[in-house]
């Protein structure tokens, strides 16, 4: 078992390295560089040259990449080219914000999705099932920014119950934190719940067609007990995978919500860094997102193995 985990971690590190090379190449290919991006309209050729000199951008790409990699292995994320600040300082605040938002959303969305999926799978074709299927389909089809804009229009502009933006993460009280984060969490929940609920429903319905379930029904076991005690654990595999993918998305992909609500998170930081060709910052963010994916999927796979005795003790 531990061998499996170790091997996966090893592969994860290799994946991280490959991603770093790809990100570096991708950003290098883009026209323009950080000197032009910082100076904007005041970018005269000599001002650009001066900044390039200062930031050592005249060194060849390979040299810069190896320099960055060596620093990373020593634990030094480097300096942001555009902001002239330690990257670790810039990221730590944003990472905390992103994790808080992702954590709270997950705490709401995962139980909700599992519950909906279970309720739907209990009586396939029944009223609850149809309600869940239609609503999740609707939520999947509507774009996130539309949901965000509608929620803001109703709750912030018309009713004025909740703020339209959450630019500050210094909360004075739990109540204020709840008010500030309510709309972003609601928006994100609507995007991730649908996917997880549908997968849960599909996985459980699939397991319910097995012979041992038919045996349990014939024995007279009540429906609820069948689903929760007998079917659920065997359906864990796909469910836990989809939850892991959605959690990783919550950490790395929520650019739209961060933009609409002006939330100082990591995804928007990376997008801004790409626009400014701030290579070290882009790399640092890419490493964090990649690690998040690898970690979550690893945990998902381990849970799937633990839940299935046949995989736990391979013959």
């Amino acid at each position, binding site marked *: 078992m531990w061998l499996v985990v170790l091997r996966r971690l090893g592969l994860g590190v290799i994946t991280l390295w490959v991603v770093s090379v790809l990100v570096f190449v991708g950003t290098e290919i*883009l*026209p*323009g560089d950080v000197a*032009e*991006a*910082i*100076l*904007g*309209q*005041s*970018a*005269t*050729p*000599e*001002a650009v040259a*001066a*900044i390039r*000199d*200062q930031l050592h951008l005249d060194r060849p790409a390979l040299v810069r990449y190896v320099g960055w990699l060596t620093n990373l292995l020593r634990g030094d994320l480097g300096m*942001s080219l*555009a*902001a*002239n*600040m330690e990257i670790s300082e*810039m990221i730590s*605040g944003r990472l905390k914000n992103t994790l808080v938002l992702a954590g709270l959303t997950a705490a709401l969305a995962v139980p909700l999705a599992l519950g909906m999926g279970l309720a739907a799978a209990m009586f396939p074709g029944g009223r609850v099932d149809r309600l869940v299927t239609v609503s999740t389909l609707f939520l999947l089809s509507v774009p996130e920014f539309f949901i965000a*804009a509608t929620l*803001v*229009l109703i709750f*912030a*502009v018309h009713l*004025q119950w909740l*703020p*339209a*933006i959450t*630019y*500050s993460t210094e909360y004075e009280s739990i109540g204020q934190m709840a008010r500030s984060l309510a709309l972003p969490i609601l928006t994100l929940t609507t995007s991730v719940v649908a996917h997880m609920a549908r997968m849960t429903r599909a996985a459980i319905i699939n397991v319910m067609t097995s012979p041992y379930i038919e045996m349990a029904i014939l024995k007279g076991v009540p429906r609820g007990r069948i689903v929760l005690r007998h079917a659920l654990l065997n359906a864990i595999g796909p469910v836990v995978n989809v939850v892991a993918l959605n959690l990783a998305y919550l950490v790395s992909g929520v650019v739209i919500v961060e*933009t*609409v*609500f*002006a939330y*100082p998170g990591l995804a928007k*930081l990376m997008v*801004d*860094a790409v*626009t*400014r060709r*701030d290579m070290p*910052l882009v790399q640092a963010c890419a490493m964090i997102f990649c690690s998040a994916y690898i970690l979550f999927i690893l945990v998902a796979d381990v849970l799937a193995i633990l839940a299935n005795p046949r995989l736990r003790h391979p013959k």
Partner: protein
Amino acid sequence: MSENKKIARDLERTRDVTSLKALYQCAAISRRAFVSRLAALGISASVAGVIVAGAPVAVAASPKRGGRIRAAAGGHGPDDTLDPARFNSVINFGRGEQFYNGLTRIDGSLVAQPDLAESWEPDSNATEWVFRLRKGVEFHSGKSLHAEDALYSIQRHLDKDVGSGAKAFVENVAEGIVEDKHTVRFKLKGPDADFPVILGTYQMKIVPAGTTDFSTAPGTGPFKLVEFKPGVRSIAHRNPNYWEEGRPYVDEIEWFGISDHLARMNALLAGDIAMMSGLDPKAIRQIDRSAGVRVVNTKAGQYTNFVMMTDRAPTDSNELRLAIKHLQNRERILKLIHKGNGMPGNDQPISPVDPMYCDEIPIRPFDPEKAKHHLKKAGMDGSTIKIHTSEVAGTGAIEQALMLQREAGKIGLNVKVQRDPGDGYWSATWGKKPFFMSGWNMRPTTNIMLTLAFTSDAPWNEARWKNARFDELLTLGRASLDPVQRKNIYCEAQTLIHDTGGVAIPCFIDYLDAMSDKVKGFLPVPLGPLGASQWPRSVWLEG
């Protein structure tokens, strides 16, 4: 209703202060109606009086103290900085005006007013300027302002390691001499009658001599830095020791950026912020319809233009360029694309808000017949040309290109519009393709604008237009201290660009901002959004 009454009624509803002023001056509306309409636009009665008088005089209003303003600029990024030499966007300019002062300040009529310098004078040929500093001014740290601080702050822009975006402005300074504790003399390499205006630009803020660490925003400004998180926000508290008597009025400013314009507008409507810059013209009706907020529209000289490079085919033919210029339906572009928020342009970069605007040049009319005639003379009847555009080129850049395509098609010129990606537009398209869209903010002086973009060897001469007489005129203009002579010189310069230049400028675009009705004392300055960011020292909250 009589024709005159109808016109007066329609114009009364306008948000255009210039039109209102014109109405009042030709007695089409009463003074009472004029002042009340201005009040509805958020301009106080005393400022209305100033507009009527036409003089840029200090306003005696009745401001209230206290309160907290939360304001948002149109976006920020990880390159937020507190170093004046690196200021290049509204989010930074706003901080500049909160924490720092310059030697001079540029007012709403583009005239240099005393800021940290009480007075100044040139020698007879404008190559030496002496500035006398105010006495008793202290930096936030308590240190007194002396002439060495002024000298250091200006000269640091020349230092390569500082990487200042404003280096070009200061290159003309050959030497700076501290004459005594409160007097500094600048000796220029070449004459410059506009030198005091240059010292009022965004980057020319005064910091203590020797400063290299700007993390505390060490300035003399109306507010002190309390918190700064780059890319997130800054918080400023009132400077109780500020040298300008009675100012500032509000106690605290929280300033940050919201890049998405919809989110910015929603924040204003929801009451989360009190002021915002960069209102999308499509949102004007929404703001007008909502209670408690208003649109602030400042006539300005920014523009989105067509660039036809004069050193490469096919745009090297002046006949083709004249054809394109005659295909500009200026009124229509202003009305449809810019929703009426602007002034018609005349294919040269100096706008009516600039004191050196030449109104003698008749505005080129929309004339497809003449365009076809020029097109034939260029031998390009029936040919195809490609124009490159992008939304980052300027406001309405894509729409203006499409409109040209339509008009050109009617006279037999096939214009292909290629939309280039915004990322990297300025490195890959600008100044490289023969025909493309570009956009410009106005500069504080006519000389700067023309020198920056139209002299033969200027790096930003996007059309590579070279004209020896034009360069000569600019040299003369810089040296002259006589306003009438300067007006004539610049008039000829504008005529040259209008006739043979490589740019077609259909209109000038207003700055559109929005704010809560509780914010009073806002003064429009055409140099940039939110009154060229000069609002921190003049606004107060009421109601």
